[in-house]
Every structure is written in structure tokens, then in C-alpha cells.
């Protein structure tokens, strides 16, 4: 949790300085510990050095959703979004921040990149301000909701193709949260198995028919060493798969 220690001539002054250093928060959002108080005789006994100073420690104890909202509202403003507001929805296991309004869509970015970056930063800032590790999700004009629907359809199509062709299907690279949606979407489909390959940020999901593994084991034939014999297919879902993996021998 974020805290600061301040030294000043009096306790009041030290607290005021501390509140500013913590980003201009109000008194009710911090816990104050007085470490040394010059007005109190006998404290820090013996340190009768001229001009004793007050020393306080301020620790942020802001509610996580509120800390996130404060941070994100200012980002939206400086980003140039007009008439955009941040709505906090507190669910049992997560906090959702919804960006609403005229320019909110501009915070999504290419393939949700900007939104993901904002989510990481807001999580970092708000966790430090609150000490609360509840996951925090940022959405703008229902982008994540829509994207989840799309990903499920992409996963379904990939599964159909894998079963039909008997071959593995590679999906385009996507962030961890989106790969998770794909894994979960196909979890109950006994015909295929999924896993991820590659390094971040180019990690991608592979959908394999269950038969393939079985068939490969049965016909323990040449081609086993190379691995290049097995044709790999790429499934164009979002369209950005094109540059990936020159090694897969197109």
C-alpha cells in the first residue's frame, strides 16, 4: 500500500504536505500515524536538539473503485475525450469501470491495445492506493462484451475446422485475457484440445482435434523428427495473423 513519511515543523503541516504528495487526496482517504510530535513533551526523549520536527506517516486507504475512477477520469480528460464519464460497477469478484459517453470509444485503440494498457495502469495505481487485490476490468462502450462474443464464435469455427480437417488450427496472437476466453469456450468440447504457444505479445491459441494425437501415436512413422511435415493451418479471425511465424513455412 502506498505511504509517505513527512517531516515538518508541526504535525498539521506534515499531514498537509503528505496529502499533497499522495496526489491531493482528502483526509478521510488516509491513515495518519504520528511518529514524532514536538508539541508533546517527553516524546522521543532526550532529542532536545533545537527545533524538533514533527514526523508523520500517511498511508492511502482509498476504496479501490474510487481510486481507479479518480485516476481514469483524469486520463480520459487529458486524452481529450469530451463528455466521457467513468462508471464504477462493483461485482462480487471484480470491479468493472465503464467508460461512457461521446468519445469513450477512442480509448479502445487498435485491437483494444489502449484499453488493455489503461487497465494495467489503473489496476497498478488503484491496488497501491487501496491495498485491495480484487481484479479490475475497464470497458469502453461494451467493447469487451462484444469482443468476448466474437472470440467465442472464432473459437467455435476453429474447433469445427480442426475436427473437419483433422489438423491443428492456430488462432491469431491475442492477450492473455482473450486466450482465456477461447480456452473456456472450448473446454466442454470433447472433440478438441486447446493450448497456447509462442512468446508474449505474440502468444496464440492452438486448437487440435483429439483424434490427431491418437492418430499420430498409432502411425509412428517418419516425419516425426522434422515436425515440418505436419501441415499447420492458420485461421484468420481478426486479420492480423499474417505476419506471424515465418518458421511455420506458410
Amino acid at each position, binding site marked *: 500500500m502506498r505511504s509517505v513519511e513527512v517531516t515538518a515543523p508541526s504535525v498539521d503541516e506534515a499531514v498537509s504536505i503528505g496529502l499533497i*504528495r499522495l496526489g491531493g487526496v482528502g483526509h478521510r482517504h488516509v491513515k495518519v500515524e504520528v511518529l514524532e510530535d514536538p508539541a508533546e513533551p517527553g516524546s522521543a526523549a532526550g532529542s532536545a536538539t533545537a527545533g524538533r520536527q514533527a514526523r508523520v506517516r500517511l498511508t492511502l486507504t482509498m476504496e479501490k473503485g474510487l481510486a481507479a475512477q479518480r485516476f481514469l477520469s483524469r486520463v480520459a480528460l487529458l486524452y481529450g475525450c469530451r463528455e466521457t464519464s467513468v462508471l464504477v460497477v462493483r461485482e462480487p469478484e471484480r470491479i468493472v469501470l465503464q467508460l461512457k459517453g461521446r468519445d469513450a470509444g477512442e480509448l479502445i485503440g487498435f485491437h483494444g491495445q489502449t484499453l*488493455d*494498457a489503461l487497465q494495467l*495502469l489503473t489496476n*497498478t495505481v488503484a491496488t497501491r492506493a487501496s491495498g485491495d487485490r480484487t481484479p479490475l476490468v475497464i470497458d469502453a462502450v461494451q467493447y469487451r462484451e462484444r469482443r468476448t462474443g466474437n472470440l467465442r464464435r472464432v473459437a467455435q469455427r476453429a474447433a469445427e475446422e480442426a475436427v473437419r480437417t483433422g489438423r491443428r488450427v492456430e488462432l491469431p496472437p491475442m492477450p492473455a485475457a482473450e486466450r482465456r476466453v477461447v480456452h473456456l469456450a472450448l473446454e466442454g468440447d470433447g472433440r478438441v484440445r486447446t493450448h497456447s504457444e509462442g512468446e508474449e505479445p505474440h502468444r496464440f491459441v492452438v486448437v487440435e482435434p483429439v483424434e490427431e494425437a491418437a492418430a499420430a501415436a498409432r502411425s509412428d512413422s517418419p516425419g516425426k523428427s522434422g515436425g515440418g511435415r505436419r501441415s499447420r493451418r492458420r485461421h484468420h479471425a481478426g486479420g492480423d495473423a499474417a505476419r506471424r511465424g515465418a518458421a511455420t513455412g506458410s
Partner: protein
Amino acid sequence: MRETLRQLLEHLVESLVEHPEQVRIREEADPDEKVVRFRVRLAPEDVGQLIGRQGRIIQAVRTVVRSAAGRVGLRAEVDVEE
């Protein structure tokens, strides 16, 4: 426009470090007038925190600032002095 970008970067960086009062952001000249180049200086003990594990935090800061710059036809670069 550049001033707003600087303020955006300042807000992000100051929110992420332990010593916001020591954050200094300087804009460097670039031959290309469409490029805004920011240099961030902070308390030495805050450098690691701003960069984050595998550079994830500073990358996210760059993504947000670049995307804001893109909206107004600029390109932004952010460097942290170590």
C-alpha cells in the same frame, strides 16, 4: 496539444511512483515536427517501479501516450533516464 500530452504523461507517471514531487518531464527537440519526444527523470528508486516487470508498465504508459498523440496527428516517444 503538446502541452496536454505532457500533462497526460505527467499524470500517469506521478500516479505510478513513490516520489511524484521528483518527477521531471522534459520535451526534446526532434527534427521531425510531427514527433514529440519526452524524457522522464525520477527519483532513482522509482525507476524500476515505473518500468515494471519485463517493462510492462512503461510499455503501457507508452501505448496510452502514443495513442493520445495519434489522435492529433503526432507521434510520441517516451524515454526514462536511468
